[in-house]
């Protein structure tokens, strides 16, 4: 019977080591879960916040496109714009989805301005064209008519 070991006395790590191991495993899993939750929620928060900021700008800025008239002889477009109560920057103007070169304009508060733009496409007499104005607060669309 000497040398025979009971099943509970089998070879393994000591109870102190097992305690430390268990603690380490618990800590590692816990830290991973907290980190994961924090990361996911941070990303969600940043995403919503950027959208809120973009929408806030959209709320303050206001632009009205009054009319758009084209001239086939000069291949020009006269675009009447009216600005709201804050300064507004027009980023790009598109005519029939083609961007107009050097169309970046800054409008003062309550400014009404007629902008003459060189059309990037050939305008035909008595035809209709589409103008899209992209500005800080969003975009606006108007259809114009080529008179002469």
């Amino acid at each position, binding site marked *: 019977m000497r040398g025979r070991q009971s099943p509970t006395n089998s070879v393994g790590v000591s109870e102190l080591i097992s305690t430390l191991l268990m603690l380490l495993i618990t800590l590692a899993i816990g830290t991973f879960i907290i980190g994961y*939750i924090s990361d996911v929620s941070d990303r969600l928060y940043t995403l919503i916040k950027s959208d809120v900021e973009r929408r806030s700008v959209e709320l303050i800025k206001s632009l009205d496109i009054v009319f758009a008239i084209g001239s086939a002889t000069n291949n020009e477009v006269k675009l*009447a714009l009216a600005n709201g109560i804050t300064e507004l920057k027009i980023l790009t103007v598109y005519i029939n989805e083609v961007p107009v070169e050097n169309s970046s304009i800054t409008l003062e508060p309550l400014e*009404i301005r007629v902008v003459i733009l060189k059309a990037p496409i050939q305008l035909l007499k008595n035809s209709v064209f589409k103008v899209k104005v992209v500005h800080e607060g969003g975009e606006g669309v108007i259809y114009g008519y080529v008179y002469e």
Partner: protein
Amino acid sequence: MVTYMSRGLSSIVGLILILIALVVFTSTTYNILNLMNEYMNINSMISNKQTLRSMTTHLTEGYYIYYPNRTLVINLINELPEPLRVTGYIILFPNISYHIVKTEDLCIIPPLTTSKLTIGVDGEPLGVFVVVLIRDEVTHIVVKKSS
């Protein structure tokens, strides 16, 4: 004894970690919900802006009469329950030239009233547009020729 201690320690550490996770989760959920609320408010305000523009198109009218002495009389009918502030006019002439008139002191058209505005022009216009502010939203009224 050590086994019990080990189980107890792990449970305490686990509990503390769960509590930290709960605090992190609750605070971020609160922040996100708060932000969502702000987002909804902004969306509703943007929707109000679009409604205001649409209302202005449907509930305002403008007519002009051109007199040979180069005077243009514009009648603006405001059927909105809100005042309109006129910021200026754009007058378009048959040769596609234009004239912009800026109103220095924003002319206010009270709700449910008609206003008459007289301006001097160079000739008979092709089209008259009145630029108005409703609350802080800019829009325009197309003024028709009075028959």
